[in-house]
Every structure is written in C-alpha cells, then in structure tokens.
C-alpha cells in the first residue's frame, strides 16, 4: 500500500506508544478455569490491576458498563465471567489508591441523563485530580430498556444523533463555570464569582435539560472522551467529538488504513490531524521465547473455548439448544431458528441470514475437516487483536506501529485477572522503553497531559446565571438550545 508508511500527509507520527488496560469483567476472553484466576467483583482485583498498570506507566484503566446481564437462549449466560461493578463507583474508589493513571468509565447515552452523567463524571474528574474519561457508547434495544424507567424508547437509526446531542450537552455542562470562578480564599464576597456560572438548556426530541451545573472545571478542564463506534457514522461521530478512539483495528496495515480514514474525517470535521488518538483493543500472550509464547497461547485458547463454550457459541447463531451435538463431531445438521424473539435477544445472528450463515459454516467445516470445537476455536481465535511472541519480538513489532504512527497505543484486555498485566509491565514495558517508544515517566498529573491532548476549546456557552435569578431567564437559553439542535441536524 502506498500509504503504508504515511497514513496521511497532514499527520506526523509521534514515535511513541501509550498503553491502557481494559478490565472487562464480562466476556469469553477472560480465563477463569485456573487457580490464578481471581474475583471479577472484589475490589482487590481492581486495585491490583490498576496499581500494576500504574507501575507500568499505563495511561488509562478502563471499565465496561453493565445494563443487563447477558443471556443465552432466554436465560442468563452461564459460561463466561460476569458480575462487574458499576464503573464510576469502582473508579471513584480507585482514584483513592492511584495517583497518575487515567480512569475511564464506559457509559451509555441511552439509559443515562445528561445532567446526572456529566455531574458524576465531573465528580470523578475532581476526585482524581483530572484523570477521568468517558468511553461513550450507545444502545437502543428494548431488551436492555427493560431495566429502565423509559424502556426501549430509542430507534436504532437515531442512536448517533441522540448520542451527539447528549455529548454536546455534557460538554456545555462541564464548561459552564468560568475558570477562576471559585473564591480563592475565605475572605471572598461570594463562593463563586457573580455571573461566572452558565445555565445549560437543551430541548431535543429525546430529552430536555435545564440545569445550572454544580461543579467547576477540573485540572484537565473536562473528562477525556473515548469512543469505539466503527461504522462510518460512528467514525464521523468520533472525529467530531472524541479525543481517543478505542478502535477494532490492531493489525498494522489495517491500523494504517484506519488512521488515514480517521485523519481525513477529523480534518473534515475542522479539527487537527493529531487531535484524535487511536488505541486499538488488543490481547497479549507473551513469554521469554517465541516457542513458549505459542505453547502458552494454545493453553490460553483451550481455557477460553472449552466444549461447552463451543456448543454455546453455535447456539447463539442457531437460536436453539444444541446440547445433543458432540463438540468433537461435525456442525449441527438442523437449521437455525430464523425469527428474532425477545428470548434470543443478545444472540449473534437472526433472520434469514442465520440459515445462510449455517449453510456456509457447515460447508467450511466439512471442507477443512473441523469438529465443532475446532471450528469455533478458529472462528473466535481473536487472531486479529492478539500479539503473541517473546518480549523482544513483540516489542519490535510494536515499535513499527510507533514509527509509522499507525496507532497511539494499545488498550489491552488481560486474559487473566488480576495478574494478567504482570509480564507486560515487568518485561514488555522495559523492552519498549529501551527502544525509545514508551514513556519512562508520566508526562503530567492529568490524563489529558499524559495522552498529549490539547486543552479543549470551551463549548458554546449557555446563559450566565444572575444573582437571585430563579427560573426567569428565557431568550438566550432558548436560542442556545435551538442552535444546538440545528448544528446536530446539519451534521447528520
């Protein structure tokens, strides 16, 4: 590829990498069938991973969000780790036992309220001394909505317009206090300077917000924004709103292509080529020698996908129980259930496409002579996102990413909790530091500083709150809300 060493003319590689860790808590990649596997819920696991990551100078510690327990054929899914705590609650506790690492909460825009979510993220940002971030996700289905007051109110097609209006409202809330608004000492006339806090209003299709934000800006001004959407719409959303993309493109060529695409979209959105960082999701299986690493990989895979997981994997796509089938035998000869029901929600595939997919898979397995276990293992190998090898080997590969600027770093999902980062921090990080592609100290005390992000431009102001003002301010607020809605429409 002609662009393989130059992702975009306007983009200058920093030559550096950052690492993040994603403590997933719910997934099939986390090994639990060994004695070393610790609790997915107890605080000590979170403390251990976060403190190890901080020892390795990681930029960020990520947590996912649970809105409904995963299901399989209409009952809670039994085979994978589950039971993660609320992200921001766990991160607020981690803020007390860490000093530099960024604390990233995945939070959806559908079942949160903008004023409440922005306030809680501000709290995390202040309590961590400017280390908070929000990984923005959207969801739309009624299955998830069954746990919430509003139920399944949002159409799939509306999820990004909805999310964007939400994020813009949150930014206005975070930027509502003038810098220096808080009294410098007890002898000041007022706790906050008169007129230094703006009221934020938004009137949209899905929600209405009218709030005087309760908190000033943090040491990093406002929380850093991560986003993971990969569709063209999701990429444009990230290019307009996000600071970091949590991408799904870790392979070098693919990563370079993704960088080129994001730089283009970022420039089109009127931002600088370096303004949006990219950190793909990844898994690392490392050892002292290449051979040991390969052996370790085979062992990890066998623990990730056992016979029960293999059958369950097919059941997701077949939409029916397949317990009678031999995991070491051929793929099921019966056809998938084709209609989507509430019981199969959360499954992999639905409708007429399921039958087509089953035919295709049966043919593929037959041709390659694969059993159910072997086929599923191949399908779920995470080959795209796994870095396997000796410490030096993998450090060399990663240096190439730094040199070409394909990514700004990697967001690692450890396959073992809580010790899954130990070999990375003890062995890989020093190799990267020797190659000059990894920090040898934290650049600053805030996440924004550590990621090399610029100070954000203050969001479109709302209405300054006047002394003694009740609910009386009208004109400017309504104008602000209208302009906001207009800009969203124009971009969609």
């Amino acid at each position, binding site marked *: 590829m002609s662009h393989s060493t130059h992702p975009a003319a306007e983009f200058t590689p920093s030559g550096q990498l950052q690492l993040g860790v994603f403590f997933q808590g719910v997934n099939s990649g986390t090994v639990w069938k060994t004695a070393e596997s610790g609790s997915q819920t107890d605080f000590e696991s979170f403390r251990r991973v976060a403190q190890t990551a901080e020892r390795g100078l990681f930029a960020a510690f990520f947590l996912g969000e649970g809105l409904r327990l995963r299901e399989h054929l209409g*009952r809670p899914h039994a085979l994978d780790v589950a039971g993660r705590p609320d992200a921001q609650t766990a991160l607020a506790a981690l803020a007390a036992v860490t000093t530099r690492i960024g604390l990233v909460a995945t939070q959806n825009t559908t079942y949160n309220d903008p004023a409440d979510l922005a306030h809680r993220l501000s709290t995390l940002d202040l309590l961590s001394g400017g280390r908070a971030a929000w990984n923005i996700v959207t969801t739309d289905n009624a299955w998830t909505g069954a746990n919430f007051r509003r139920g399944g109110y949002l159409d799939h097609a509306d999820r990004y317009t909805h999310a964007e209006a939400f994020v813009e409202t949150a930014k206005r809330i975070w930027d509502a206090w003038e810098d220096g608004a808080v009294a410098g000492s007890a002898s000041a006339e007022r706790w906050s300077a008169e007129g230094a806090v703006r009221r934020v209003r938004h009137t949209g299709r899905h929600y209405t917000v009218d709030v005087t934000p309760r908190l000033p800006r943090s040491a990093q001004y406002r929380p850093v924004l991560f986003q993971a959407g990969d569709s063209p719409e999701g990429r444009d959303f990230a290019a307009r709103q996000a600071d970091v993309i949590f991408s799904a493109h870790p392979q070098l060529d693919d990563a370079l292509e993704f960088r080129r695409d994001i730089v283009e979209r970022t420039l089109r959105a009127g931002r600088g080529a370096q303004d949006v960082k990219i950190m793909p999701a990844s898994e690392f299986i490392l050892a002292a020698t290449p051979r040991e690493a390969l052996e370790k990989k085979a062992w990890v895979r066998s623990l990730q996908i056992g016979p029960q997981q293999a059958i369950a994997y097919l059941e997701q796509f077949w939409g029916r129980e397949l317990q009678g089938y031999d995991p070491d035998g051929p793929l099921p000869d019966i056809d998938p259930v084709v209609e989507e029901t509430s019981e199969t929600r959360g499954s992999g595939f639905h409708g007429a496409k399921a039958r087509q997919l089953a035919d295709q898979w049966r043919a593929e397995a037959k041709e390659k002579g694969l059993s159910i276990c072997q086929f599923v293992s191949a399908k779920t190998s995470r080959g795209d996102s796994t870095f396997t090898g000796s410490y030096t080997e993998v450090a060399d590969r990663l240096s190439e990413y730094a040199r070409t600027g394909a990514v700004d770093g990697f967001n690692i999902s450890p396959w073992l909790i809580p010790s899954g980062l130990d070999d990375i921090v003890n062995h890989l990080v020093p190799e990267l530091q020797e190659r000059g592609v990894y920090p040898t100290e934290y650049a600053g005390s805030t996440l924004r500083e550590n990621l090399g992000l610029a100070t954000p431009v203050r969001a479109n102001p709302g209405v300054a709150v006047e002394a003694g003002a009740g609910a009386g301010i009208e004109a400017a607020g309504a104008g602000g809300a209208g302009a906001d809605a207009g800009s969203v429409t124009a971009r969609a």
Partner: protein
Amino acid sequence: MSTHPAQDGPLGHGILLLELDGAGSHPAAWRVSRTAPAAVLGPEHLRGAVLAAESAGFHAVTFSDPGLPDPGHPDAAARLNALQRAAFAGPVTRSLALIPEVDTVYTEPFHIATQLASLDYVSGGRAGWLVAASPSAADAAAVGRDTVRGDRLSREAADSIEVSRRLWDSWEDDAVIRDVPTGRYLDVDKLHYIDAENSSYSVKGPSIIPRPPQGQLPVLAPAGLLPPEAIAAGAADALLVSAPTPELLAAELAATRAGLAAGGNGPALIAELDVVLDSRGQAAAERLAGLNGHTAWQSPRARFIGSAAGLTELLTEVLAWADGVRLHPAVLDTDLEELTQLVLPELRRRGLLAPTIPDATFRDQLGLARPASRYAAAPSAPGAEN
C-alpha cells in the same frame, strides 16, 4: 435493630454518625473554614475528613446530596456527587460505615441498586443508603421531568427501595460457582428476574453484580418519608428523627417508636442534631451569630449551641431514647476538633457507644444479621418461569 436502650438498657450500643458535606453544615461555613473553598472539591480534603472522622471514633459518615443550589446565592457552593465521595472513602477507611444520600425520584433504580452494591464491594461491606426523595423543581428540570410532590414522593422512594432490595437479592450468595467440569461460571438457577412493577415503571433484572457483601445494605430514611406500610414491610433499617429543639427530641423519638408496628424488628431510630460548639475561646452562640450574619442556617433539625460538656449531657440523654445520633457540625474542621477532643472520649468513658471494629460491616454495627436472599428458597429457575 431488635432492641432499643430505652426499654432494655443497659446502654452501650449507641452509634454516632457525622455528616461530612463541604466545609460544614452551615451554609456560610466556608467563610471560617481552614480549607480553601476550591479544596473542598479535591481528594485530599475528603481523605482527611473521613480519616479524621474514623480516628475520632465515629461509627459512620453520611454524604449529603443537597441537590442544585440557588446559583445566585453568595454562599451557594459546588457539590460533588455523594455516592462517589463514599466510594472514594472506601479503600481509605477500615471501620467507618459510608452512607451516601441518594435521590429516588429523578434517578434510575437499576443504576442506584448497582452503584450501591458496588459501594458495598469497594468498602468491604460498610455501605449504607440514606434515601432521599427530591421535591425540587430544579432537580426535575435538570432531567426534563415534571416535579413530583406529596404522596408521590413517598411512593417513588418506596418503589425505588423495593427495586434495589430485589436486585441485591437477585444473585443468590453462591451464584458464582466456577465449575470447571461443566464449564459453568454461574449457576443460572441462582440468578433471578425480579420483575418489579409499580405504577410508574418496571425493572426486569437480574442485577449485573453479585449480591453485595452485606446481602442487603442498611437503608436509612427520614422518619415520615416512607408510607407506614413500607416501614412495616421492612423497607427501612433506620429512621432519622428530627425535632424543632433538643428538648423535644426525646418526645419525638418516643412518639416515632410508638407509631411503629408493635413487636418484631422495627427500624433503629437515629436522632438528628445540628451542632455548634464553643471553640478556641469563642462561644458557640457568638460563632453562630457570625455565620448567620452571612446566611441564616435553616434546617428542620434540633440545634445544640454551647459547650462540649453540655453536648455530652444532651447526647447521654438522647442516646437513652435513640439507637444513634447523627451530628451536623456547623463548621467541619472547627466542630469536629471539639467533638474529637472532648465529646466522643467522654461518651465512650460513660459506656454509651458501641465499639468501632475494623472490617465490621454496617449491618454488624446496627446489630442486624445478614439475611438470606428472598429468592434463595425459590424452587425453580427464572427461565423456567417464563
């Protein structure tokens, strides 16, 4: 709590709670605080405050969530989220129960239940929940909803508690089995849909997090907030009792006790008391007058203004009627110092206070046993019911 000292004596089970908001409970507290205004929002102030409360011998701290202030008022200060302050305090402390005030009207019950369960995990079973039901129009406008008033507030609070309690039970204690031979991490028969339905919404469940360490977090509510039938059904583990003056507290506690269903395990009663103490040669009344010169301290609570010795006498009397007292210090760093030096040691010497035990749960402090999950006896799995 199964007994109360007024009937059963001897004393020695009293618990003391301290409200930790901002620079103090008086709105003008920041004007005389040793903490710089902006520092009240930082981690070091919070760390220092909870450690000071713990080493002083308090049993619990509460984190108020006063809602949106009137931004035009000169004393309107910024506020951090209460639940996250409590979570931050979790790994910092060992014996202190951590009790955030969390609204039930404009919040998602599912989020509240999982956040509070998570707080119980990060504090090793020391979490509680102070239930609030916001009547504020500003809180309603912030989330684009209509203001809720009157009986609806009671209803919302009771409904939200019911959802949380069911969600906390929705994973039986031994639902995580890690059974390698069958490949099952979870025993699905021990996970339960809660199917909570009320007049406003429904919640399906189960929770996303296993049963909290305490099984059920102790729930505290202001007396009078919850409908009597909810109290009778065990919605609250403790009620906060207020009276207009200290002299009326004992009578109010007795009346509240009498109003509870006779027999059985009624909720514990915790008296509410604002406190301004003589300090560093300055009389309490003088201190209060100075603060009130900026903004009058309005509260529905009884207020003690005077010496540490006088407060000790009052608390000795009140603890004969109440299971605990929550103190609202006018100025945190000034009044906490007096409480620490003079009041708590004397109360402890008199044998009025329960011991503070590292790693004990909040339920332990309240003398509450750890309950079994309400679903533990259910014969069939949730999937089979549908």
